[in-house]
């Protein structure tokens, strides 16, 4: 009698084993990091250029198509990267059942904050 594998053909094809996932998390962290390098440098330079400027000037800057687009892209990349990074920290230090809850809570908070930030930008860009 030949030895039979208890793994399903699909599980064997996916080849993920006990890790449950492949390189998606690692890869997404790198892709968001690559996106964040120019976006963050642009953001930092813009904020420095607007240091001490009044509300009207700041709003006028956000309303330019470049600033509106880049701010939304920044918020998406930033909070996606943040969620991925915080997940690793939680997985490294939290070992109880709290881990499962904490990872989900952090991810939901990050996505929620990204949406709140994007709405703020859109309100400034298209508001009266």
């Amino acid at each position, binding site marked *: 009698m030949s030895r039979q594998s208890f793994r399903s053909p699909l599980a064997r094809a996916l080849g993920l084993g006990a890790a449950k996932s492949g390189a998606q998390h690692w890869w997404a962290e*790198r892709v968001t*990091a*690559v996106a*964040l*390098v120019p976006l*963050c*440098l642009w953001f*930092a330079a813009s904020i*420095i*250029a*607007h*240091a*001490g*400027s*009044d*509300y009207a*000037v*700041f*709003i006028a800057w*956000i309303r330019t198509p470049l600033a509106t687009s880049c*701010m939304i892209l920044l*918020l998406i990349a*930033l*909070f996606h990267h*943040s969620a991925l*990074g*915080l997940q690793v*920290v939680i997985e490294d230090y939290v070992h109880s059942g709290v881990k499962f809850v904490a990872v989900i809570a952090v991810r939901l908070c990050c996505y929620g*904050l990204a949406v*709140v*930030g994007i*709405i*703020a*930008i859109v*309100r*400034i860009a298209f*508001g009266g």
Partner: protein
Amino acid sequence: MIKNETTNGNSTPARPRPLSPNIQIYRPQLTSVLSIANRVTGLILSLGAVGLVVWLSAAAAGPRTYGVIQGVIGYWAGQVVLFGCTFAFFLHLCGGIRHLVWDTVHGFELRSIYISGWTVVAVSIVLTAAAWTISLFVTGWHQ
């Protein structure tokens, strides 16, 4: 009845068990310190990102709410936090670029690791100083 001579009543061993070397035992090295720093700055910047959303929401709410937030940032404690976030930002940015270079399987020789490590530290300090110096000049220019 056999008496266990290696343990006392409190079940603590007479001779301390050997410990595997961990973070409290190792002498801090640039490599380990920067590794931890990248993680800590990531945590700080995640909190900073919450501040960014609060700041943008205040700007969307109107000039009065924005003025309150600008007042908090302008207060000395706000400036200290912002300065810390600026340094954390540049350290995480430079450290992140170092990691992206490593991902291309370059710069793993011990010498390269120390050169890139000290470069990250130096560039972060220079960029933080430059960002604040230019900001102060621009602030004076706007007012």
